C-alpha cells in the first residue's frame, strides 16, 4: 500500500516537473491612455475555455512578468479597476505593452451591471416558458420595514400565502399556502434558501419541554437584509423538484450576491418604537368586589340557605373581598391594580446591517454583518441576533464555476417561563383580582420591592389552578433560548458539453439550540415541597442537516422552432438530531437557573434520531415555435420514515402553456405585450413526520416481574403506512398590457389530499395496543383562486405611481371522513365548544349553542316545545327550562332549544362558524415624486370566525377572575335591556360554548405607511456617496375591524379541531420607525 502511494506521488511530481520544464516568460508594461503606468493591474493568461492559467500583477512602474505555459490558443487578459478589460491573443510575443482605456460605465452604474441575463428556474427553464405558477417578490420593497423574521414582512404580499405572525420577539409564524391540506402531517411550506432546503419544523420525536421550543421561529436566523428575493411555488408542476417536502408549497429565498464592479459598501440602520393599543377595560378593585358579592348572593338565592351554606361562608369569611382593616393583608387587598398595564411596556427595535460587495471578471463576493435587537411589548421579552453571510463566486473558466455561501448567526431570545396548562402572564393578569397589590405594602403604606405572592388566596393557588403573580413572572422568571446556526452551501457548475450542464450542490446546516427556563418561588408562592418550587430546566438540541444534489441539464435549440430541455436530478437529504433535557425542582437559589445538584429531578429525556430522504427526478420540456410549451416530469422518491413496502413512491406531473400573446392575430392588435395560458397537473406526497414512525418498538418495563426481566412491545410495526398524496390541478393566465405597465395573473386550482395521515389513532384494546402512530385514511380538498395585479399607472421621470393588489380565496372541505376518526368527546360544560370534522364542512369548524340573550322573568323560563307551546309534565304542571341538569332563573343565559324538549343539552348544538378566512388580500400603492417615495400596504383577511376565549374568561362572572367592564351592564332586574346574564358564582351554565363568543374577525389593516427621501445624487457624489436615503415607516398603524378583542389576527393553532382561539396573546403593536440607508 505504502509503496504504491510513494510510486503515485513520485509519478505526480514527475508530471509536474515535466509541465514546468520550459516556461516561457512574457514581459511588458501597462499604461493608461495618457501613457502613465498603472500599478497593481492584473495580467493573466487564459486558455480557450477562459480558464485562468497563470496570473501576475504590475509593479509600481507598471511592469509585469508573466509565465506562459506551452499550450495552444492562449489569450493575455489585462484589467484594473476603473479601466476596460483588454484581451490580446498570445502569439509567442516575447514582450507585450498594453494600454488600458478608462471605463466610464463601470464607475457610473455598477448596480445595473448585475446583468439582465435571462433568468431561469432550477431546471434551466426560463420564466417565460414555464408552465406553472410562480410569484416573485423583491425584498427591496420591504427595505424600509423593520422586522425580525422575514415572514412577518411578507404578510399579505403573496397571493394565497396566508401568514399569521406572532407578535412576541422571535416568535414563530404559521404559513399556509393554498390552505391546510393535511390533518396531521406538517402543513407548513418548504423553505428553500439558495437552492437548499431549510428545515423549519421542530422534530416530532422530541416532545419534551417543547412548549417553548415550538414557539421559536427558526426563520429568525436569517436576516431579512440578506435576502434578495422570494419566490413562491404553488402548483404540483412547480414544486415537483422539491417533492414531498414541497407538497404544501415552496418558498424559495435567494440571498444577495456580489456583483461585478467596484467595491460597494452599504449600511442601513432602522430604529423603531412599538406601542400596544389599549387593552380591554377591566373592573377596578371595588367594582370587582361588588361583582363577586353580587354573584355569590345570586347563587345563594338559587340554592336556598341550607344548600348554599358554603357560599355564605365564603362571602362572610373571605378577607380578600371583605373590608376588615384589622386583617394583616388589608393593605395588600385594598389597591387598584391594572395588572395588564403592569406586565406591558413600550417596546423598541434596532436593526443595523453592513455589507461589502464587489468583484471582477473571475470572482464576485459579498460579505454582510448584521445586528438586531428587539424588545417586546410584554415585559421580559426580547430578542437579539448577530448574523453574517459571506458569499463568493469564482469562475475558473467558461466551463467551470464554483460558488460558496457561508452564514453564521447567533440569536438570543428571552421570554417568561411557560408550560402546557399554565396561562400566559397576560391571561393571568386579566383575571387577577384588581384589588390586590403586586407588591408587599410596607408600614408606610407604600409598595416595597418584595413581590406579594401568597401561597393561596381567594382566587386559588399555583398548585390548584396555576395562579401566579404575573408581574413577578415577566420580571423574574427565565426562559432563554440561544440559537446558533452555521450554514455552508457549496456549488459547482460545469459545462460538460455546450448543451449539457452539470451542477453539484452540497449544503451543510448545523444548528445548536439551548433553552434554559427558571421559575422562581417569588412567582408562584409555593412551599419548598412543591414540585414547582424554584423549578429549572435545561434543554439542548443539536441538529445537522446535509443536503446534496446532482443535476444534469441538457438544453438544445434544435432549430428555430424546436427547443428541448431535459433534466435529471439526484437529491439526498439527511437530518441528524440529538437532544437532551432535564427539569428539576427545589434548586438552591432563586438566582440560579441551571439545574443544580441535589435538586429533585422532575423530568429527564433525550432524543437521538436520523432521517434520510432521497429522490430521482427527471423532467422534459419542449417548446415549439416559442409559443407552444409542454412539460412532463416524474419524481421517484424515498423516505426513511416509511417501511420498505411503501418507502418508494412516484409522483408524476405534466403541464402545458400557450403563449397566445405571440400569435399574430393578437400581436397585430397590439393590446397585449404578453399573454400566456397555463395548465398543469401533478401529484406530490407527504411523508409522516418523525424518524422511523413505522417501526415497531419493544421496550423494557421496569420493574419486571420479581426477578424476571419484562420487555413488551410499545408500538406496532406499521407496514401499511404510506404517503399522503396531494393531487393538484392548476389553470392560470398571465397578461401584460399597456406597454408592459400592467401585469395580471389569475389562477384557479384544486388540491385534493388522499390517504390523509391520521395521527395517534386509538386501537381497540383487544389488539393489546392502545394507539398506533399513523394511519392513512380520508380525503380532503382545497379549492380556490388567486388574482394578482401590478400596475404602473404613471411612469415619468419625476413622478411615478404604481398599484399592486392580490386577492385570494381558498375553500377547504372534508370529502371523505377517515374511516376510523374518533371525535373528541364533547362534555357539557361552560366555555366548551364541540369540535367535529364533518363530511362536507371545512376543517376548523366550531359547533355550539345559539345564544338568545337573557331570561327576563319567570314567564320566559317556562319550557316550550318547537311550536312554542308550553310543555307540561306528567302532573300537568308547567316545567321550567333547564340548562343541562340545572333549572334556569330569570337573568340566566338563554340558548335556543333546537329539539324543543325543555333541556339545553348536546342535541341543541349547531354549526357556528369556521376559522378559515373566505378571502385574504393585500394591496398597496406607491408614489414617487422627485426624491420622495411614499409606500403603503394594506392587508386583510375576511370571513374567518374566532372563538374569543378572552371574552369567555372576562365575561363569565362565574369564578373569581376579574372581568371586563362589559359586565357592568349585566342583568340585575327584570326589564334590564342587556345580553349579558346575571352574575352567578360557581353555579349554572351561563357561558356554554355558544355563538355569543364566536366573532367575525375580518379586518383590514394598514400594515405599512412609509415615506422615504433620497438625497440628490449630484450632492452625494461630491462625497463619493452613491445613495443616502432617510425614511420613516409606520407599521400596523390602523386596523378596520368589528372584532371586539385586542387583535383580530389570531394565530392558527396546530390543533385541527380548534383552529383559532383568541387566548390573549400579545397583540400586534403599532410601530413607528426611523432609518437610513447608505451606499458608498
Amino acid at each position, binding site marked *: 500500500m505504502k509503496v504504491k502511494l510513494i510510486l503515485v506521488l513520485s509519478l505526480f511530481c514527475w508530471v509536474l516537473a515535466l509541465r514546468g520544464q520550459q516556461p516561457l516568460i512574457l514581459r511588458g508594461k501597462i499604461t493608461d491612455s495618457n501613457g502613465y503606468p498603472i500599478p497593481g493591474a492584473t495580467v493573466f493568461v487564459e486558455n480557450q475555455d477562459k480558464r485562468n492559467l497563470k496570473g501576475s500583477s504590475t509593479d509600481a512602474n507598471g511592469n509585469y512578468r508573466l509565465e506562459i505555459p506551452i499550450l495552444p490558443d492562449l489569450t493575455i487578459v489585462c484589467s484594473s479597476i476603473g479601466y476596460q478589460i483588454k484581451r490580446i491573443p498570445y502569439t509567442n510575443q516575447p514582450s507585450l505593452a498594453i494600454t488600458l482605456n478608462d471605463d466610464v460605465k463601470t464607475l457610473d452604474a455598477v448596480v445595473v451591471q448585475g446583468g439582465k441575463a435571462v433568468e431561469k428556474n432550477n431546471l434551466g427553464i426560463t420564466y417565460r416558458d414555464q408552465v406553472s405558477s410562480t410569484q416573485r417578490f423583491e425584498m427591496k420593497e420591504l427595505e424600509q420595514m423593520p422586522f425580525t423574521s422575514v415572514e412577518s414582512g411578507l404578510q399579505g404580499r403573496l397571493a394565497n400565502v396566508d401568514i399569521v405572525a406572532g407578535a412576541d420577539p422571535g416568535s414563530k409564524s404559521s404559513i399556509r399556502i393554498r390552505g391546510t391540506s393535511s390533518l396531521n402531517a406538517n402543513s407548513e411550506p418548504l423553505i428553500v434558501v439558495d437552492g437548499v432546503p431549510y428545515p423549519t419544523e421542530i422534530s416530532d420525536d422530541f416532545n419534551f419541554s417543547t412548549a417553548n421550543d415550538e414557539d421559536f421561529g427558526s426563520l429568525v436566523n436569517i436576516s431579512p437584509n440578506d435576502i434578495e428575493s422570494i419566490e413562491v411555488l404553488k402548483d404540483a408542476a412547480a414544486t415537483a423538484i422539491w417533492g414531498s417536502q414541497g407538497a404544501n408549497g415552496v418558498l424559495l429565498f435567494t440571498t444577495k450576491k456580489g456583483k461585478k464592479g467596484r467595491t460597494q459598501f452599504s449600511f442601513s440602520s432602522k430604529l423603531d418604537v412599538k406601542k400596544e393599543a389599549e387593552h380591554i377595560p377591566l373592573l377596578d378593585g371595588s367594582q370587582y368586589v361588588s361583582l363577586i358579592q353580587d354573584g355569590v348572593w345570586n347563587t345563594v338565592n338559587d340554592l336556598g340557605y341550607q344548600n348554599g351554606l358554603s357560599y355564605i361562608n365564603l362571602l362572610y369569611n373571605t378577607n380578600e373581598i371583605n373590608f376588615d382593616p384589622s386583617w394583616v393583608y388589608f393593605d395588600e387587598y385594598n389597591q387598584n391594580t391594572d395588572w395588564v398595564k403592569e406586565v406591558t411596556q413600550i417596546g423598541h427595535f434596532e436593526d443595523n446591517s453592513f455589507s461589502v460587495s464587489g468583484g471582477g471578471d473571475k470572482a464576485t463576493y459579498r460579505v454582510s454583518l448584521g445586528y438586531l435587537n428587539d424588545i417586546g411589548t410584554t415585559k421580559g421579552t426580547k430578542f437579539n441576533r448577530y448574523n453574517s453571510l459571506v458569499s463568493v463566486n469564482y469562475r475558473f473558466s467558461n466551463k467551470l464555476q464554483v460558488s460558496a455561501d457561508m452564514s453564521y448567526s447567533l440569536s438570543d431570545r428571552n421570554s417568561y417561563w411557560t408550560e402546557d396548562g399554565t396561562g400566559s402572564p397576560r391571561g393571568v393578569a386579566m383575571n387577577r383580582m384588581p384589588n390586590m397589590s403586586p407588591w408587599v405594602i410596607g408600614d408606610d403604606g407604600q409598595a416595597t420591592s418584595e413581590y406579594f405572592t401568597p401561597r393561596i388566596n381567594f382566587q386559588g393557588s399555583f398548585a390548584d389552578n396555576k395562579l401566579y403573580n404575573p408581574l413577578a413572572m415577566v420580571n423574574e422568571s427565565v426562559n432563554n433560548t440561544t440559537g446558533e446556526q452555521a450554514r455552508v452551501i457549496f456549488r459547482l457548475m460545469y459545462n460538460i458539453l455546450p448543451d449539457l450542464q452539470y451542477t453539484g450542490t452540497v449544503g451543510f446546516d448545523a444548528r445548536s439550540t439551548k433553552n434554559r427556563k427558571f421559575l422562581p418561588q417569588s412567582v408562584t408562592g409555593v412551599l419548598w415541597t412543591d414540585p414547582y418550587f424554584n423549578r429549572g430546566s435545561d434543554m439542548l438540541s443539536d441538529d445537522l442537516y446535509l443536503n446534496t444534489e446532482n443535476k444534469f441539464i441538457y438544453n438544445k435549440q434544435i432549430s428555430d422552432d424546436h427547443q428541448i430541455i431535459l433534466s435529471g436530478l439526484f437529491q439526498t437529504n439527511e437530518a441528524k438530531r440529538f437532544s437532551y433535557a432535564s427539569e428539576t425542582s427545589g434548586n438552591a437559589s432563586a438566582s440560579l437557573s441551571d439545574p443544580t445538584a441535589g435538586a429533585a429531578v422532575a423530568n429527564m429525556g*433525550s432524543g*437521538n*434520531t*436520523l*432521517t*434520510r430522504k*432521497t429522490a430521482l427526478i427527471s423532467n422534459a420540456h419542449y417548446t415549439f415555435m416559442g409559443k407552444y410549451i409542454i412539460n412532463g416530469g416524474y419524481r421517484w422518491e*424515498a*423516505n*426513511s420514515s416509511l417501511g*420498505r413496502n411503501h*418507502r418508494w413512491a412516484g409522483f408524476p406531473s405534466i403541464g402545458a402553456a400557450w403563449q397566445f400573446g405571440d400569435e399574430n392575430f393578437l400581436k397585430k392588435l397590439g393590446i397585449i405585450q404578453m399573454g400566456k395560458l397555463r395548465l398543469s397537473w401533478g401529484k406530490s406526497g407527504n411523508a409522516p413526520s418523525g*424518524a*422511523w414512525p413505522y*417501526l*415497531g*418498538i*419493544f*421496550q*423494557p*418495563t*421496569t*420493574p*419486571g*416481574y*420479581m*426477578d*424476571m*426481566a*419484562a*420487555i*413488551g*412491545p410499545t408500538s*406496532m*410495526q*406499521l*407496514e*401499511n*403506512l404510506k404517503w399522503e398524496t396531494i393531487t393538484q390541478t392548476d389553470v392560470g393566465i398571465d397578461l401584460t398590457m399597456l406597454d408592459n405597465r400592467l401585469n395580471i395573473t389569475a389562477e384557479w386550482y384544486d388540491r385534493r389530499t388522499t390517504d390523509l395521515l391520521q395521527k395517534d389513532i*386509538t*386501537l*381497540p*384494546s*383487544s*389488539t*393489546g*395496543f*392502545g394507539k*398506533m402512530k399513523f*394511519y392513512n385514511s380520508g380525503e380532503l380538498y382545497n379549492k380556490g383562486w388567486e388574482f394578482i395585479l401590478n400596475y404602473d399607472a404613471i411612469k415619468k421621470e419625476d413622478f411615478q405611481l404604481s398599484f399592486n393588489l392580490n386577492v385570494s380565496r381558498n375553500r377547504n372541505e372534508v370529502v371523505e371522513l377517515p374511516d*376510523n376518526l*374518533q371525535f373528541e368527546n364533547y362534555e357539557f360544560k361552560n366555555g366548551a365548544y364541540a369540535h367535529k370534522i364533518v363530511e362536507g364542512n371545512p376543517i376548523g369548524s366550531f359547533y355550539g349553542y345559539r345564544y338568545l340573550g337573557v331570561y327576563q322573568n319567570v314567564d320566559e323560563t317556562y319550557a316550550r316545545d318547537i311550536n312554542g307551546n308550553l310543555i307540561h309534565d306528567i302532573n300537568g304542571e308547567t316545567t321550567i327550562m333547564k340548562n343541562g341538569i340545572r333549572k334556569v332563573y330569570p337573568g340566566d343565559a338563554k340558548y335556543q332549544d333546537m329539539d324543543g324538549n325543555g333541556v339545553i343539552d348536546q342535541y341543541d348544538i349547531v354549526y357556528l362558524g369556521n376559522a378559515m378566512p373566505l378571502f385574504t388580500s393585500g394591496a398597496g400603492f406607491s408614489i414617487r415624486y422627485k426624491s420622495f417615495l411614499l409606500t403603503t400596504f394594506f392587508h386583510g383577511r375576511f370571513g374567518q370566525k374566532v372563538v374569543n376565549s378572552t371574552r369567555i374568561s372576562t365575561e363569565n362572572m362565574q369564578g373569581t377572575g376579574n372581568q371586563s367592564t362589559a359586565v357592568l351592564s349585566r342583568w340585575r332586574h327584570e326589564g334590564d335591556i342587556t345580553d349579558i346574564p346575571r352574575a352567578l358564582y360557581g353555579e349554572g351554565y351561563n357561558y356554554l360554548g355558544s355563538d355569543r363568543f364566536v366573532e367575525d374577525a375580518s379586518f383590514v389593516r394598514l400594515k405599512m405607511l412609509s415615506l422615504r427621501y433620497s438625497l440628490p445624487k449630484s450632492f452625494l457624489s461630491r462625497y463619493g456617496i452613491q445613495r443616502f436615503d432617510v425614511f420613516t415607516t409606520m407599521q400596523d398603524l390602523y386596523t378596520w375591524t368589528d372584532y371586539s378583542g385586542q387583535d383580530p389576527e389570531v394565530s392558527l393553532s396546530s390543533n385541527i379541531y380548534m383552529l383559532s382561539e383568541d387566548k390573549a396573546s400579545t397583540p400586534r403593536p403599532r410601530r413607528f420607525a426611523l432609518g437610513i440607508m447608505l451606499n458608498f
Partner: protein
Amino acid sequence: MDVIPENEQISDLYWANKEEVAAVLGASYVQMQKSLQQLVVWGEARGNGLALGGFVDVDLQRFKLFDLTPSNELVKWGNFYTIINYANMVIKYAPEVVAKDPSFSEPIMQSYLSEAYFLRALSYFYLARNFRDVPLILEPYMNDQASFEMEKSTQEAVFNQIITDLEGALEYSKEVWPTEWETKGRSTKWAIYATLADVYLWTAQYDKAIIACNAVINSGRVGLIAGKVNSKNNWYTIFNPGNSNESIFEIQFDNTKNQTNSLVSWFGSSYNWVISPYMVTAFEWNSEDIRGAGATYSQADYKVWKYLGAEAGTGVPRTYSDQNWIIYRMADIYLMKAEALVMKGASYYTDATELVNTIRARAGISQPLSPLSTEIEMLDQVLHEKALEFVGEGKRWYDLLRVAQRNNYVYKDYLINQVLLGISGGSAPVIRSKLLNVNSHYLPIYIDELQANSLLEQNPYYDNLN
C-alpha cells in the same frame, strides 16, 4: 434507506434468543400485576362480601349498585388483552427462536409455551366470566397487517378455547420451579389444574373437575396448612408472608424489587372497601372461627385486615403494600371439588360435606356440618364456607354467578337474594329488578372499544345506554 434507531429495540430484530422470549412472558406477568384493580372490583363489587368504605369513587359506587354504564372506567378490559397479545406472541414466535438460539432447547421452549397458554387461558377466563361473549384473538398483533376489528365469539367458544389451551399446557408444565417465588408466582401444573377445575365447573363437566381437583390434592406439592400452630393463627400466614404451602398461584409483589400494589390503599388508607355487615354477622355466628375478627377483618373499623396486617389478632400493620394476590389456593380446590360432588347428585352430598368440614375444622370450628337435603341447600353450604374463607379475594361474584346461571338460571333467585344481602338502603328493589334481567349480570363494553372497533356490539342490556 433503512435507518435503525440506536436507542430503541425494534420489532424486526426482536425474537432472537430465549431471554427475549422469557422477557415477554415477564411482561405478561407484569401486566397481570397491573390488572389487580379489575381482579378486585370485578370479583367483589357485585358480591356480598365487601361493602364500600367512606371514600366515594363514583365509578366504584355505580359498580356496587349495578348502575353500570359503558363509560365506567372500571369496565376497561385492555389489561387482559395485553396479556393475551403477549402470550400470543410467545406462542407464535418462540418456536422460531429455537432455530436462532442454540441454547434454546425444545423442552425449554415447550415450557415457555405452556406458560403462555396458561396466561392466555386465565385472561380469557376472566373476560368470559365478566363480559360473556368477547373477541377471541389467538394470533398476535405485531404489525398492522391483521384486521384490528374483531367480532365477539360466544362464551362457549371462549370456554372451549380455554380448556384446549389449559389441557395442552399440562404436558410441558413445571411441577416445581427452582425458586419459591417462581413455584408460587409462575405457571405450574397445579395452577393449570386449578384453573381447569374452575372452568370445568363453569362448563358443567363435574367429573373432569373432580379429576383436576384430585390431581392437585394428590400432587404432594401443595396441601392445606394447619389453622393453628402453638395457639398462633397459622391460617393468616397464607396472606402474610404469603407463598404458603397452601398456595397454588399468586401474583407476586415485593417491595424490595420495587413491585408494590395498591391493596393497602384500597382497603386501608383511601378507604374504598370494608367487609360487609352481612359477612361480619356470618363470622359472628361462630366464635371459634379463627378467620373472623382480627384475621379477615378488624373488629374496630371493619377494614379487611387480611391485606393490611402483618399478623392476626394484633394491630401490627404491614410495612409495605406488597402482599401477593392469590388466584388459587388449596382451600379453593377442596371447595370446588365439593361443588362438583354436589352437582353429581344426592349420593355425593356426604362426600361434599366432608370436604367443607375439612375447611371448617382447619378454621378451628369444632362443630361439623351435616349433609342437607336439596341441591341448592348443599350448594349454599359450600358457597357460604367459600365466602367465609375467601373474603375479598376476588371470588364471591363468580361463585354466585356460576351457580345461578347453571341449567338455564334455575338458581337466579339465589343470586339475587345473595347480592341483596350485601346491599343496604333503599336501592334493593331497583337492583332486584335489574338482576332479573340476566343480561345485567355481565359488564358493558367500554365506550372507546366500540368506537375503535365497529364490529363490536355492545352487550345486551347496555346497548341503549351509549
